[in-house]
């Protein structure tokens, strides 16, 4: 399963790509594969604020409902508008067109506490 270098990962299978004081969040290819075909993504409103670890949305596959957890604290700058009509992008391109939200990071240093690609690969290999 593809785990790109340069991203940060949570134990709940979200990824975070830090871009200065902002960050893009999605779910990993491993998570998308485990969920199966994604049919619905519920995302927050622009401007919503989340503490680290709080639920910011929901992703649903045919069989399962899964909460999305904020990998770091932040304010929603943008949500991926394409997912409303094409939730399958989460399966097809989990690290690309299937991204979910862009956050203004409250504390960019929080990203350092997340796993790097090597550690995440190790975790999903064991799991």
């Amino acid at each position: 399963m593809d785990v790109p270098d340069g991203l940060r990962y949570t134990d709940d299978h979200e990824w975070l790509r830090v871009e200065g004081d902002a960050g893009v969040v999605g779910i990993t290819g491993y998570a998308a594969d485990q969920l199966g075909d994604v049919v619905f993504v519920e995302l927050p409103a622009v401007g919503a604020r989340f503490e680290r670890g709080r639920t910011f949305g929901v992703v649903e596959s045919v069989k399962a409902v899964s909460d999305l957890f904020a990998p770091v604290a932040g304010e929603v700058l943008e949500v991926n508008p394409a997912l409303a009509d094409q939730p399958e992008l989460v399966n097809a391109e989990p690290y690309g067109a299937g991204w979910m939200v862009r956050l203004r990071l409250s504390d960019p240093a929080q990203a350092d506490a997340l796993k790097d690609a090597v550690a995440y690969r190790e975790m999903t290999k064991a799991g």
Partner: protein
Amino acid sequence: MRRTSLYDRHAAAGARLIEFGGWEMPVQYKGILEEHRAVRQAAGLFDLSHMGELFVAGPGAVAALAYALVSDPGRLAVGRAQYSLICAPDGGLIDDLIVYRLAEERFLVVPNAGNREAVTDAVRERLAGFEAQLDDASLRTALLAVQGPHAQGIVAPLIDADLGALRYYGITPARAAGTDALVARTGYTGEDGFELFVPWDAAPALWDRLMEAGRGAGLVPVGLGARDTLRLEAGMPLYGNELDWTVNPFEAGLGRVVRLDKAGDFVGRSALEAALARPLSRTLVGLVLRERGVARHGYPVFAPAAAASPTGVVTSGTVSPTLGVPIAMAYVPPDASAVGTMEAVAIRDGRVAAEVVALPFYSRPR
């Protein structure tokens, strides 16, 4: 957990396996949506060996089954099948099942995997006093289904019976790829298709022959995930979702199955007669969500939408792969069950608008 004789085939095909009714079964191979579409547009191959197969035979078989079930198997011609229900004395639904008449005095009853033991126990008990014997062949009978518009073209070359002459809900003995089989034109997908009952150990070779025969016709193996979305689009109830011990057949829209007009007593008759005499307290409807969201089993329903508190509950829901909209079945009060009624499904913190529609959601083109 039990495994079917096709376990190795599932593992080799990369299936994701789950526990279902005490069995380790494939929930998906390549993906539920892809498998669902294959069945609608071409064909799918299912391992249903977890389901029960009970043979009931003897001079008293007709009378025994008429007593044990709510339907009237005596009305079946040889080679025909009917959808039926088995109820407890209090009218509680033990299971829904298919009854096939194989001969004048020989029937095949097919219950759900998870209810096999309860049904077997009930049927055995109810056969007492009748000249009929029960043979639970579930663990030595495999069941393969080929469903979809290309099913007949795939199955026919492997069968020595004329499938063109086999009508919907018909069954015939035949040779299938070198083994003795019962071939039925039944299914749980809303498509044309066949179910093949074969000896347990003959299933792997038949599976391979079917896969080979279907290669050019788009046949793919299909798991329980797509089986669920297919039956839901077809408006077919699933025991454990739409049906359970607390539901009576009239609430579930299955009153036509209950033959109160048949001669003699049957288990559940007085309770079902009483239930029919009372106004229904709830009725099963189809819903299409008119806003974004997915209604899931157990979600409360405000029916009608203006109701102050939830008055109904979702029994099954998904995003319809064929229609592209969220669909659900739900129990709602009868006065809020007319087609066109607007309801609201409680999904997490919000309410999502839903409209009552006629079932099924999907009918195959004919």
